[in-house]
């Protein structure tokens, strides 16, 4: 019934969808197996893509030929560039998506790929021969052969949903949990763990009094995630903000005795930075109020998502508490929030390509690796898909470095440090934040995708080169053009910047704090004329590259310094036992992780700086 596939992707969430499409784009024959074809790329949590550090990841995925950015652009209902008051490393695109449209468009996009077949079923085991993955077994009793398998099971592996004292098996509300896979993998020698996450209640928007709420509209000039020509967002829908108060807290507290969080029924570890509302009240008892965001679910529904109110308290307690929020006095709930526990596999069992060390040609991506977030999942899916294809075609692996992409930081952190709680990306996880900006993701990564032979990278490169040329032309103009005090001092006065006394080159002027192209354009008609000819995104990239050149150079130097450690290779069979001077923990971790380089070894938690010195001395440095 089935041919032998190059790649089988198990699960069709954000990781699975990117994995399937990236492998297919490289030329692999892919089978995408999901338990429910209606829920492809479902946004199980809030209907939003991007945000701080996450928006950068989406742009990276796009630059590498993935689809998350394109699909977000087509289905978003609000766009905001966060952190514009901060430096360019922090500028982060974020969009509210129409949940249904997002899922529908992903399905359509996948269906348009000739190389992808679909099968609705539950995978219960991996066919493993001689330590190599050869396909899957399903609940329907079929065996499907393949050269590689990518697992992206999300929260479905032995998922248990908790609402108050009620608990039932499930991977998402009203969806079955996946059984059997964890058990087989553990039998194969994999280590498994348990994590927890949760969602807030969904509210009937018709019953909310928006008039008393603070409105949070989208940007006046909404941008896009994709570097391709996706449509511009025209009609935006606002979010709203409300706050909890002590009365709401008191009501919530009445449910604590029945909370699975506090009674110990939930054992999985949840994310500290995305805590449930009961967790927030308990842990930060001195805070009388917490902010909540009311996020619309789409253009064609009144359903809203109460972001910040994630809860697994009994539904009646949730309901009572919601009704005490300002603007929610008459609110009706569509469904209560819940917590979900699921299996994950500590990601230290993976290599940089997300292939497992134990079973060859088996890859893990997404929440199965202990991460949280659509963006983190999608980024891993993309890398797993590309590398599955490369592996079965005996090509060199594709690994992004920490100074090349947040995706590189993400995977490097996961496989070296592991994670004790759902891993979410932050800009502070990246050492080279100013290099990993949203505006230069294409400059950083599209050439790599092009070199790999990713479909569509050819056309993307045309734009990359245009962008680089624009920067060069603008740079030349700034280097050659001087401004006189008469031209510019009025502007300087208005922003209390010290006035010029003689002619100064424009490139120096741009370096001043609070000076940007927008302000300069208003004072300098020639500059305005020049810039009018260029694409707005290209101008933004040029401005940042020139204005922050000093910082960018400094970080590049730091990255190069650290990269020297990446060049010192460690043989995979290196015998750490013969180095008596390694710390006990360091040795155990080194044996387990088997780092490729000294640089990687230095990032393994438990490996101390003096362990690294020992290795360096032994390697003759």
């Amino acid at each position, binding site marked *: 019934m089935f041919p032998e596939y190059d790649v089988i992707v198990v699960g069709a969430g954000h990781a699975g969808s990117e994995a399937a499409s990236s492998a297919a784009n490289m030329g692999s024959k892919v089978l995408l197996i999901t338990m429910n074809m209606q829920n492809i790329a479902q946004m199980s949590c809030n209907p939003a893509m991007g945000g701080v550090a996450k928006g950068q990841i989406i742009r990276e995925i796009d630059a590498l030929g993935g689809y998350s950015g394109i699909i977000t652009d087509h289905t978003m209902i609000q766009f905001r560039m966060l952190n514009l008051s901060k*430096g360019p490393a922090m500028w982060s695109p974020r969009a509210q998506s129409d949940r249904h449209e997002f899922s529908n468009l992903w399905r359509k996009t996948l269906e348009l790929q000739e190389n992808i077949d679909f099968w609705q079923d539950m995978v219960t085991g991996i066919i493993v021969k001689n330590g190599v993955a050869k396909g899957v077994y399903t609940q329907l009793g079929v065996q499907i052969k393949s050269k590689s398998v990518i697992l992206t099971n999300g929260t479905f592996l032995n998922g248990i949903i908790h609402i108050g004292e009620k608990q039932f098996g499930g991977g998402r509300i009203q969806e079955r949990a996946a059984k059997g896979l964890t058990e087989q993998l553990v039998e194969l020698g994999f280590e498994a763990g348990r994590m927890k996450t949760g969602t807030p209640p969904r509210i009937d928007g018709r019953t909310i009094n928006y008039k008393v709420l603070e409105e949070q509209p989208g940007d006046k000039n909404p941008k896009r995630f994709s570097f391709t020509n996706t449509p511009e967002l025209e009609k935006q829908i606002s979010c709203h903000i409300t706050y909890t108060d002590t009365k709401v807290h008191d009501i919530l507290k009445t449910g604590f005795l029945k909370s699975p969080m506090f009674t110990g029924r939930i054992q999985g570890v949840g994310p500290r930075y*995305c805590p449930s509302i009961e967790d927030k009240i308990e842990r930060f008892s001195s805070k009388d109020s*917490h902010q909540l965001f009311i996020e619309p679910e789409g253009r064609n529904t009144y359903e809203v998502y109460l972001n910040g109110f994630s809860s697994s308290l009994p539904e009646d307690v949730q309901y009572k508490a919601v009704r005490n929020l300002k603007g929610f006095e008459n609110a009706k709930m569509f469904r209560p929030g819940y917590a979900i526990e699921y299996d994950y596999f500590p990601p230290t069992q993976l290599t940089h390509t997300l292939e497992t060390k134990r079973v060859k040609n088996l890859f893990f991506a997404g929440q199965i690796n202990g991460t949280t977030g659509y963006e983190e999942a999608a980024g891993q899916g993309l890398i797993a898909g590309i590398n599955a294809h490369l592996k079965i075609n005996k090509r060199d692996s594709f690994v992004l470095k920490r100074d090349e992409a947040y995706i590189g930081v993400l995977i490097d952190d996961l496989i070296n*440090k592991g994670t004790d709680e759902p891993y979410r990306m932050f*800009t*502070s996880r990246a050492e080279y934040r100013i290099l990993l900006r949203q505006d230069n993701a294409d400059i950083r990564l599209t050439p790599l995708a092009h070199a790999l032979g990713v479909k569509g990278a050819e056309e993307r490169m045309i734009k990359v080169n245009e962008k680089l040329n624009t920067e060069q032309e603008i740079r030349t103009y700034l280097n050659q053009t001087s401004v006189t005090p008469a031209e510019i001092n009025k502007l300087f006065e208005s922003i209390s910047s010290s006035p010029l006394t003689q002619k100064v080159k424009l490139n120096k002027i741009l370096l001043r704090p609070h000076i940007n192209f927008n302000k300069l354009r208003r004072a300098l008609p020639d500059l305005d004329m020049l810039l009018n000819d260029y694409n707005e995104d290209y101008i933004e990239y040029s401005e940042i590259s020139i204005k922050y050149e000093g910082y960018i150079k400094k970080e590049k130097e*730091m990255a190069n310094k650290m990269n020297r450690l990446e060049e010192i290779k460690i043989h995979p069979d290196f015998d750490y036992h013969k180095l008596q001077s390694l710390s006990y923990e360091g040795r155990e971790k080194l044996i387990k992780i088997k780092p490729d380089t000294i640089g990687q070894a230095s990032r393994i938690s438990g490996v101390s700086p003096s362990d690294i010195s020992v290795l360096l001395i032994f390697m003759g440095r």
Partner: protein
Amino acid sequence: MYNQNLDNTIVALSTPPGSGAIGVIRLSGKNSIKVTNRFFLGADIEKSEGYTVHFGKLLNENNDIIDEVIINVFKSPKSYTGEDLVEISCHGSSYIINEILRLFLRNDVQIAQPGEFTMRSFVNGKMDLSQAEAVADLISSKTKISHDIAMKQLKGGFSSEIKKLREQLIDFASLIELELDFSEEDIEFADRTELKELVKIILSLVNNLIDSYKYGNVLKNGVPTVIIGRPNAGKSTLLNTLLNEERAIVSDIEGTTRDTIEEELNIDGIIFRFIDTAGIRESKDKIESLGIEKTMKSIKDSSLVIYIYDAHKVNKEEVEMDINELRISNTPTLIVANKIDISGYSPNIPIDHIKISAKNKDNIQELKTKIYNSTIINKIDMSGIIVTNERHYKLLQESKKSLLNVISGLNTQVPADLIAMDIRQSTISLGEITGTISTDDLLGNIFGKFCIGK
């Protein structure tokens, strides 16, 4: 830097080169006991236990007795290096020591490179890196003061100071990172004025450490001192007189001395290191005037200049010219009027010139006191932390540079992510001193201390 091959057996003189009551020669490596046994007339030390002491005679290949010696045997892993190790105590004549060293070098034993015993000890898990660094300082300490400082460092005074600074910086960074990564949440932002105060405090602590290096460097490496003067002023005689009791005999085998002993004068625990002594000794008549480039360079490299002239055959104009030139160089200078045995205490000699006879050793004690008092060292508060390591000093300076950027960034309202970069650089520099680099502590801090809601 080091030979990766730890299979070698190495040898070195472990006591200072020169004459003394005893000299200790140390061998480490798997052949150390065997090779010693071959030339040892006494107990069979190959069969003996570790931690044993043996008296006997050491012979050369021709069975000539080199010396009567005492041999300490240490068996792996219970030794300083963790390897088999032998310590031979012989009579402390440089002839005997050289003969013994030569004997082993002829018999497949390699001369140890500087620090190699400690390196082996480290590689074999006997000590960690910071201990190794402190040991290196202990070994190189030449005086009680520098020994005290190294001991303080070994006990962890310095690293805990650096760790404290680094923790403060990480706290500071956490505040900034928090408002960066959680800008969308309802958290309170860090007060800029408070942040600036915090950085200023950290900066002043870093500055104190940097300043202490001025002393630390002198304590560790001695005060570079130069004697200059016109031909026949008596430079060479003065040098010999000052060094009379201090001079060590340098071993004549190339590579066998651990540190080439420089011509040093120890006054009450402070080392004065005479530079360009070769120049003084060789070129008695070559230095025609202070204008000569080489002399000027010596002055530049030194922290103390001893200018000497012949009080008997004095050419006042020349001397005044020289003194004026020295004044421009701004290096502390002592002016010595020599040959008062011939000239007598002439009233023509200005009062602030130190009147001596280098030949007859007249007034040398007074000169030594003046030399001692000319340094800043006697003004140090020895209870504080003193930076003596050049690597530490350079890293502290890097850290300071980044902190200054942070302050100017806060002043000119540079965006927080760029300020964070400078903080991070400063933390990295400090971390390199103690050997810790991680971005994990940042996040640990954020989560440990603040309420983050979503």
